[in-house]
């Protein structure tokens, strides 16, 4: 039964060749390097996160039709935070992950017009229609925020404030996590609340 010697080997090699490769979801972790990406920007340029080393970067997932985004833009809350952040020398990038045909999917031109109309002044807007950056960061909500320090380390992930609602009247009562983070950054402190619960609409991925 010489076959006995041959088959285990043959089978072993077969098994090895069929072994499924499990994909690991790289989720961003606080105090670990933030995942790097490049993406098309609304102004036609290409944004490479690695090029922004040396600057603090805020990623804001957005969808102009989502009622929670509307709440924080109409009230002036997010546009104010953007002004404040940019004045602090921070790069503020909106990210639009809505897939083509889904709510909030816009061209770069429309994205810029929307911002002008809303008095919003982010540094730029990244168009992520295929959802790759969204999935890289595990973005689930609009609005949702990630803050990356000048060394490229993730220092904040979470929501905008502490009261999950679509009512503008709640903004004044809520603890604003982003303005607290901006204050901590300005003072050179570690961000006190580095992880918070985001709330809002789901990010409109293709699938």
């Amino acid at each position, binding site marked *: *039964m010489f*076959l*006995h*010697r041959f*088959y*285990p080997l*043959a*089978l*072993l090699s*077969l*098994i090895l060749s*069929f072994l499924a490769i499990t994909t690991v979801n790289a989720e961003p972790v606080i105090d670990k390097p933030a995942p790097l990406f490049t993406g098309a920007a609304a102004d036609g340029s290409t944004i490479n996160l690695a090029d922004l080393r040396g600057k603090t970067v805020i990623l804001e997932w957005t969808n102009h*039709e*989502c*009622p*929670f985004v509307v709440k924080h833009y109409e009230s002036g809350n997010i546009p104010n935070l953007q002004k404040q952040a940019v004045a602090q020398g921070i790069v503020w990038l909106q990210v639009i992950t809505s897939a083509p045909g*889904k*709510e909030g999917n816009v061209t770069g031109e429309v994205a810029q017009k929307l911002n002008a109309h809303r008095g919003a002044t982010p540094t730029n807007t990244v168009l992520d229609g295929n*959802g790759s950056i*969204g*999935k890289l960061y*595990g973005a*689930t*909500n609009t609005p949702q925020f990630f803050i990356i320090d000048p060394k490229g380390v993730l220092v904040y*992930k*979470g929501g905008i404030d502490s009261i*999950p*609602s*679509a*009512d503008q009247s709640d903004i004044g009562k809520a603890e604003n996590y982003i303005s607290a983070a901006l204050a901590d950054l300005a003072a050179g402190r570690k961000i006190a609340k580095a*992880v918070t*619960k*985001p*709330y*809002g*609409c*789901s*990010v*409109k*991925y*293709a*699938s």
Partner: protein
Amino acid sequence: MLQLRSIIFTLIVLLLCTGALQASTFEASTDQVKAQLITSVDAVHPGDEILVGVQERIIPHWHTYWVNPGDSGLPTTIDYVLPKGSTVGDIQWPTPRRIVLGPVTNYGYENEVILLSKVKVPDDIQVGKEFPIQAKVKWLVCDEICIPQKVDLALTLPVVLPGIASGNGSPLIKAAQTTLPVNSPWPFSIAKSGNTLAIRVTDVQFKKSNIKHVWFYPEKWGKIVHNAEQPWKISGDTLEIQLKSGDEPLAGDEKLSGILTLTIDGAAGSVTQGYQLSAHAETVSTIGAIDAQAPDLVLSSALLLALLGGIVLNLMPCVFPVLSIKALALIKHANHNSIENKLHGLAYTLGILVSFTLLGGLLIILKAGGAQIGWGFQFQSPLFVLGVAYLMFTVGLSLSGVFSIGGSVMGIGSSLANRSGYSGSFFTGVLATIVATPCTAPFMGAALGFALTQPPATLLTVFLSLGLGLALPYLILSQWPSLQRRLPKPGVWMDRLKQGLAFPMYAAAVWLVWVLAQQAGINSVAIALGGMVIIAFSAWLYESTKTGIKSTQRSGAGVAGLSLWLALIGSYLGIDTSPASPLSNVETSSTFEAYSPARLSQLRTEGKPVFLNLTAAWCISCLVNEKVALSQDSVIQAFKEADVTYLKGDWTNRDDEITRLLAEFGRSGVPLYVYYPGKNSPLKNPIVLPQILTPDLVIRTVKPSLSREKEV
């Protein structure tokens, strides 16, 4: 008369008016949701505790959210405005369901949900007055897009004297209570290790009940990753589900709370019930990973695994000779009519698929009868083993050229020059299936283990997929003449190879007789060998009289047939089919002990490491593994050094204890190798080893430190 009529008319108008008035207040609608305020009574007494609720009826594809909406969304909120002195409890949330969109997982409700709260009527409310209830309801309703909405609902209940019936209220209340999770009736615990959480629930019914799906819904955001897999398994009486810690993991003294749902297949279809759990997590050093393949395998991957398993079966020593005979026939005919080759390929495939359907059907029937069976179960019958031994021997004789039957049942028997007989190809397929059953190829174990827990249709689908895999290599070869041209040229070598291939068949027959000896005692060997002599005689007689005159031919075939019948009937009567007592075949030796559930649990209680080998004499893969790995000196030495007790369980004959143990690991057949770490090991859970072993693999499992030293 006229007066009476006008009174009735007035009454009707009044009723309509109040009805209309009520409708505008206790009900409200948006484009997506119809809401109404309901109560458990029609009237209240002072000091009553009643149930008040809001029913949301949601248009298709839209949903509202649970108290923890998951990755996005907002739970419904209800602000009750009640007379002074009333109190209102929290919303009693019905068991939610998962709503998944890409990487976003939400928890909520589709179609309909009723959110109940307890309301306490003040003790000092005056009888005869009214008890008004106002509810300000806010919800976020989403499909692809989300819309925040709010409605104001109100109704009024009369306050009546104690003793006057308060009425039945809305029938919806009762319906709503059935959708609520119940407190867990079972003992449970939560363990935490690194970023893995494991919930363990114990109940003796778990093994028997047909649990299809398990999911844990955490009450708070951040405690677990919502979109992560939740692998689960049932081993023994314990159900374990594993969760991944989320962005705001459990703090030291924080409890994990939520709803564990079990979906159970019953007579009336599958039913999901939620169980409320809340407990502190106990930190442990490790939580053994749950093999994602078993038992929670999805049909698609089971089908794929079965197909792969079927393909690999072709290489197993049981099937290879049969297959190579088919391949030889193909070489011979490579230059002939390709349509004929294609038909042969199809007939062969059909033969395999029909056999697998029969095998699957038989399994379903036996399973319905409550038998504990698995893959290769038919080899637990000594008669079947003898039958296959005879078959192997006959095929061997035919290959050796002792006899040939032109284009009849024995397709292999037909000489290679004989091109007729699609039935021959069909029965080669049947033969391939029969000889394949004692082999368990890689991938098959998980797929079959899954199939055996499934309803008949799914079981058959997996079996057919396995059969297709087995048929595939020859089928492909037969369908593409261009592939056939790459085969070596036909020649005398083919006859030599054919004759050579007779010897593996004889060897297989010898092995089966050995299996038989263990199943039915030494006398069965005499019967089997005697039967083989008669078979050989019949074959010789048939062949040598075949070419004679008609009468010689007839008498030769007659005598041959008669003696063959005698052999078969004699064997049938002679073999002792009473099943041997369990475990009788494994005798404890210096290197291993016979498995028994009692011995295993004793060793486990003592905290000793155990290596368990579940095997059967008719399982070739098992024997190979024992030869090349488990009986190697290095392995025996490693067992000794690591103080591992090596237990061997024999499934050669039917043994329900072992079948149950196999099922615990999601398997339906042997081999199964399990290493139970001892109390000193950092590992806690049993480790299932692959179905193909190497000495190194075994040593590394039982003595991780040893192999590391070796590597250095």
